[in-house]
């Protein structure tokens, strides 16, 4: 089955070549980092985690969000998701791998990574994060592979797979919970020390993940014969809507608790994000842009007429994804360090080298995802695009009821 990824048309190989160039360019930047240490990044002794760890945090969310197609299909027998579960799982596989790579590129001594296994430290959330991520990767690889190979043979997946699928549901929740525990158990960092961090991570993940999946479905419909169907897309849109509402709600809870209590060490971090602190307002425009996108997304998603119009839904999904990426992938980590424990404000912005290393990791993720999706569509005989796709498009637009 894996050999299906090795045959394809010019368009496919062109894309693979492009992704390989991304990886290569980033790899040069990573070699530079290996040689010169983390001085090539914007990190400092005050802001000691940055862009890499933020990408890790965001991508754990994308990985976990596969559960949003798996759960309705396997627990609620929601048939419209039957073709989508594998897409969700094969989106989670590269996401988990990217998470692991972002941790490794962040390490000062990456060649000692095996020490985490050799000296297991049950006190450390990082150890548990590694356990939950690798366990999740194992589960989704086994499930994805078995379901797809059964589909190829035209038979039902083997019975022994069912427990794996059931376990994978709470396991998906666990990976993002443990990721939140990395931050939320530290008395030194009041910005993260909130019980609502894990729920908030999950809510934002379950909004951004399905939004990304909808966008992928739209793209795949252009490129291949694959069509998830109107019901599936609309159900995903509803899931993203609920999750986005809960996400915004939880953010507002944070704002209330912080500012009504008026505790300075809690307020300073929010001030840094939204109005600037001690003259440092690097993230202020980004955070307001993120908030504006969240409002736009909510208006588009909550209005049935817009949600059911595919173009509008597409815009809403982009807004959700970008809004949450800025919040988690830029703001969340850096704000925890600003101000520092001693009240100092130190600038942080990712350097070009840091960005290129991230391009390498994203490239590896895209490569794995492209190969896996190619296998899915070849197995299903859906690789060629529908020629009359453009005419179909109008029919798919559903008028509001």
């Amino acid at each position, binding site marked *: 089955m894996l050999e299906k990824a090795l045959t394809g048309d010019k368009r496919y190989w062109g894309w693979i070549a492009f992704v390989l160039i991304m990886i290569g360019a980033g790899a040069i930047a990573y070699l530079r980092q290996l040689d010169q240490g983390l001085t090539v990044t914007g*990190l*400092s*002794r005050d802001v*000691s985690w940055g862009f890499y760890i933020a990408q890790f945090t965001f991508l754990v969310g994308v990985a976990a969000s596969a559960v949003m197609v798996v759960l309705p299909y396997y627990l609620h027998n929601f048939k419209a998701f039957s073709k989508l579960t594998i897409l969700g799982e094969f989106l989670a596989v590269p996401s988990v791998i990217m998470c692991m790579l972002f941790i490794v590129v962040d390490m000062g001594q990456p060649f*000692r990574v095996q020490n985490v296994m050799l000296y*297991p*430290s049950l006190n450390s959330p990082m150890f548990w994060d590694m356990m939950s991520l690798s366990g999740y990767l194992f589960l989704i690889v086994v499930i994805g592979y078995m379901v797809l190979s059964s589909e190829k043979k035209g038979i039902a997946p083997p019975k022994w797979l069912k427990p794996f699928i059931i376990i994978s549901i709470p396991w998906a929740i666990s990976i993002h919970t443990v990721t939140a525990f990395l931050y939320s158990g530290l008395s*030194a960092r009041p910005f993260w020390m909130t019980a609502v961090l894990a729920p908030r991570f999950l809510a934002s993940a379950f909004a951004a993940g399905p939004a990304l999946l909808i966008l992928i479905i739209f793209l795949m419909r252009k490129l291949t014969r694959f069509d998830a169907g109107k019901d599936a897309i609309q159900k995903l849109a509803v899931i993203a809507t609920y999750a986005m509402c809960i996400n915004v709600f939880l953010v507002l809870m944070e704002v209330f608790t912080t500012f009504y209590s008026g505790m300075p060490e809690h307020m300073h971090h929010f001030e840094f994000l939204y109005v600037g602190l001690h003259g440092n307002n690097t993230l202020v425009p980004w955070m307001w842009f993120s908030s504006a996108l969240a409002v736009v997304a909510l208006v588009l998603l909550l209005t049935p007429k817009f949600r059911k119009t595919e173009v509008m839904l597409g815009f809403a999904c982009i807004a959700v994804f970008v809004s949450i990426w800025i919040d988690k992938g830029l703001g969340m980590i850096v704000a925890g360090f600003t101000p520092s*424990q*001693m009240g100092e404000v130190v600038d942080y912005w990712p350097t070009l080298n840091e960005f290129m290393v991230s391009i390498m990791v994203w490239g590896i993720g895209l490569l794995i995802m492209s190969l896996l999706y190619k296998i899915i569509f070849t197995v299903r005989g859906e690789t060629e695009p529908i020629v009359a796709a453009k005419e179909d498009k109008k029919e798919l637009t559903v008028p509001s009821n």
Partner: protein
Amino acid sequence: MDRRDFIKTTGGLILTVGSGTYAFRILSATGVSVSDTDNPLIGKKWGMVIDLTKCRPDCTDCLTACRTENNVSFHGDKRWDNHWIRKVKIEGEVGHTKVEKMVPLLCNHCDNPPCAQVCPVKATYKRDDGIVIVDHHRCIGCRYCMIACPYNARQFNFKNDEDWPNEERPKRSHGVAEACNLCAHRLDVGQMPACVEACQKCGANAILVGDLNDPVSEINRITSTLSVKRIREDLGTEPKVYYLGL
């Protein structure tokens, strides 16, 4: 049995046996506290008192002595310079008037050290005598300890330092964390830490290191009779550096 089944079966077997062995290893992993010397001074509980009324605001002798003794790297760049001990301006109050104080800050050698708690490889640990120490050969450079420390006392070697003032003590390569070790190597042979010695030499004599377990020690006399403060006592980390006049 065809090739695919063979790969599946062996793969499954290796995975089961491997994870089983590994689970056993995890479950049999024991405590963090380690003693790494058979010196008679072991069994003590080291603590420090810094008397701010004696410390001169513009004096940096202890900082220099520490840097030289322990090869603490300095590059002239605020982002990457390491300080096992540094002086920080802290706002205090006398009556209702705000005053600024220069406070020497260093690792507090907490009794409940958050850095050791979060370390994923047990590279940071607490010795039996209470000193929190980093094994920089095991450290993977994840910097989680820096994030967990409420005192901003953890340091990271962003780059290699060419200077090597004290060749009897190791330098650290780039990519590992470090912090004040209370000059454990000196205490182990009955000498006071470099900062204490420097402070005595400059005449201020503002730093005292002693045994918190010894009921008649000077440090216990001070901490029990005078008004001492520790930084962020509310966090429950039980820091072992006491300040007079904070």
